[in-house]
């Protein structure tokens, strides 16, 4: 029997509420609000309360998917990245870098978001960077 309480931060939106994950026998079973967290002071919205569900969901993607013959199929990271590179290159060549837009996310870290905009500006060559919350 193994029961752990793991402090973390909600990854659903940019508010950054403090959460506690309850882990039983290695399985994430529940989420609680952290009472002493300065951001949320023991409160959560419905997404935060159900944070564990998207981690353990059957629908969660665990590998990259590539569309082949109209169907999404599991693929290796190498294949997925190669395909993305080829398609992006072709699009940029045909329509210019401003035909590409990049959406950053609240679900990734500050540093990763920095890399996302760097990738858009320095690699692709566009200022089309926006946030997933404005989709």
């Amino acid at each position, binding site marked *: 029997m193994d029961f752990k309480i793991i402090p973390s931060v909600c990854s659903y939106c940019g508010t950054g509420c403090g959460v506690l994950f309850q882990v*039983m026998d290695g399985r994430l079973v529940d989420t609680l609000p952290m009472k002493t967290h300065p951001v949320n002071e023991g409160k959560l919205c*419905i997404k935060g309360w159900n944070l564990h569900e998207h981690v353990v969901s059957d629908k969660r993607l665990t590998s990259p998917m590539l569309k082949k013959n109209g169907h999404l199929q599991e693929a290796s990271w190498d294949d997925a990245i190669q395909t993305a590179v080829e398609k992006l290159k072709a699009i940029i060549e045909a329509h210019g870098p401003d035909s590409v837009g990049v959406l950053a996310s609240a679900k990734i870290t500050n540093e990763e978001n920095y890399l996302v905009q760097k990738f858009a500006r320095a690699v692709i060559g566009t200022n089309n960077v926006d946030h997933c919350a404005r989709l």
Partner: protein
Amino acid sequence: MQEQVREWLEQGKVDIFLGYKKIQGHPLPHCFTRDNLDETDDLIVGNARYSLEKMATKIATEHKELKIGLLVRDCNQRALNVLYVWNQLRPDNIETISVNCCPSKLKEHGDCSYLEPEKAAPLKMMIGIDNNMDVKAAEEFGQEDRYKRWMYELQKCLKCYGCRDICPVCFCKECSLEHTDLIATGSVPPEVPIFHLVRAVHMGGRCIDCGLCEDACPVDIPLRLLYRKVNDIVSDVFDYKTGTSVDQSPFNMLGEEVTLEPKPI
């Protein structure tokens, strides 16, 4: 306290002990085990309350024979009593260490500071319900005024289900609050006042006035006051003081016959 928990774990009186430990500067609930005995030196009471008994209930559903020790304030003990009554935990498998507690109507004097009531803002005083009111004061508003004030409070609801999710005595597998025939879905606020009244009715004979629901409510609805009113009725009609004993609740008697006499009103 730390010595005692260490002994209990060593001697096998309990298999695990739920208490608090400071982690990353926060007093957090923590599960102490025999495999890590030295950790018991870090056991603290902590000024932030969590429902350790709700964690125990969760653990006990998967590990039925496990002996669970836990740190209890008065509210935790009252919740345990209700969980025994409703067969969610077996008293034989639970050992407790009592610590000081926070104020409640069921125990007037306590010293857990975390629940010190915050003063209500002027707008709330003017058109809503001050969370610090007692039932009697809240009933003194005229009927129409009272209705408006409660509706003002209830329509703030975000339907986060936090009040239910944090509640030590909300353990139903299927919850009425998510039943689409009872409460319509698809809008926020949820159907008021039905959403809150359904829960209030369920809290009759169950709510032990720990205040965790109100603490977790992002929009400061005076939930505890609502459930106090419900349990005043339970106390008046059945002479049953929820959580104060492990006596059967008037709400979980099975059978054809009513054996409990309602008290004359």
